[in-house]
């Protein structure tokens, strides 16, 4: 769920941003993910954690951010495997690989359920219920820092475009900047487009990682899938780099 935008002008220092809608969404995602197999709830939980992390950054708060990161990361493996298993076309992966991935998913779900049932998760939800609103004035300096981080990560990517870790770092910095701007009711069209490019690359890399991790016999179908995946990664990497060059001025609101 995206934060509800206020009617006031986003740039006005008088704007007070409240996190309760996203907090309640997080509570609902936790309940749904705990009670049933619901990959959307798992995804929603991760997004809500990331949005709330940025909200705390805008309020210059440090406490609870480690807890949000812990909760978000606890869902990472489950989310990766859900995406991989749901997005693989019929016959794309051999039966043994699918079976191994499904076993990994079962373990990931069990670990995730332990986290959801933990005292720390309950305490986090309780604590978030008390977090005060943030004024746009207070959020201004953290917002500038998040934009500056995007600029630095973008420069680092251009310095070494073959290093996927730099794509990943830019993707994370962009996500935080987007969420910060959304909290403040600002336009994020350009960021979203670039996120799509970097997200597609990340999905392909995650897919490669998981497929290489699971045990499997040699398979011509798998070898072909792996080869296709590597080509796809190269293509998506080039596309993301191009997208960053094309949109960075707009995203960072620099003069043309």
């Amino acid at each position, binding site marked *: 769920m995206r934060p509800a935008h206020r009617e006031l002008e986003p740039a006005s220092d008088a704007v007070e941003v409240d996190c309760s809608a996203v907090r309640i969404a997080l509570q609902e995602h936790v309940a749904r993910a705990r009670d049933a197999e619901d990959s959307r709830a798992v995804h929603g939980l991760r997004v809500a954690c990331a949005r709330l992390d940025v909200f705390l950054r805008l309020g210059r708060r440090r*406490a609870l951010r480690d807890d949000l990161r812990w909760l978000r990361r606890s869902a990472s493996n489950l989310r990766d495997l859900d995406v991989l298993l749901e997005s693989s076309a019929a016959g794309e992966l051999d039966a043994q690989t699918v079976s191994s991935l499904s076993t990994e998913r079962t373990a990931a779900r069990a670990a995730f359920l332990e986290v959801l049932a933990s005292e720390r998760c309950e305490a*986090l939800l309780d604590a978030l219920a008390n977090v005060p609103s943030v004024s746009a004035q207070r959020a201004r300096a953290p917002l500038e820092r998040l934009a500056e981080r995007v600029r630095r990560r973008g420069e680092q990517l251009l310095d070494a475009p073959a290093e996927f870790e730099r794509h990943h770092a830019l993707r994370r910095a962009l996500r935080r900047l987007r969420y910060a701007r959304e909290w403040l009711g600002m336009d994020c069209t350009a960021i979203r487009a670039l996120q799509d490019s970097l997200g597609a690359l990340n999905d392909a890399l995650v897919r490669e990682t998981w497929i290489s991790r699971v045990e499997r016999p040699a398979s011509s179908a798998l070898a072909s899938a792996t080869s296709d995946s590597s080509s796809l990664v190269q293509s998506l990497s080039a596309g993301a780099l191009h997208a960053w060059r094309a949109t960075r001025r707009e995203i960072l609101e620099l003069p043309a």
Partner: protein
Amino acid sequence: MKLLVVRHAIAADPVEGQRDSARPLTSAGKRKFEGVVRGLKRLDVKLDLLLHSPLLRAVETADLMNALVEGETRVTSLLARAPSKALIEALDEPSVALVGHEPYVSELVAWLVTGERQLARGFPFKKGGVAWLEGEPVPGQMTLASMLTPAQLRAIGRKK
């Protein structure tokens, strides 16, 4: 291990309709506790783990202690109730601070130092006060190195 037990800083009085858990620190409470943190910093306190209760006044106190944290900050409801074995088991780093509430912080210190929780009255905390314990985190086996008031820590922080 080194264990700092901290009572939250000065919080606002409750207003009508407000949950007790949502009471924030006052401006003066924040300012005074910033002085406490400066004192702790001068004493070279570095934390591997900071545990705090989910109540807003403890969350905001933990926020102010961020400059001392080199490891993780973690919220736990174990600090919003009487001290338990589960809380002691969570003390799994060499240097840990806990931010909680009365009477529980006094009970915890009494328990760890004497083995008897009912001696809590012998270990009173002012808001923003700090007890510094050392040794194994086992009831009756920790040493109380010092019990510092906020004023003492602010004075330490002011000296150059």
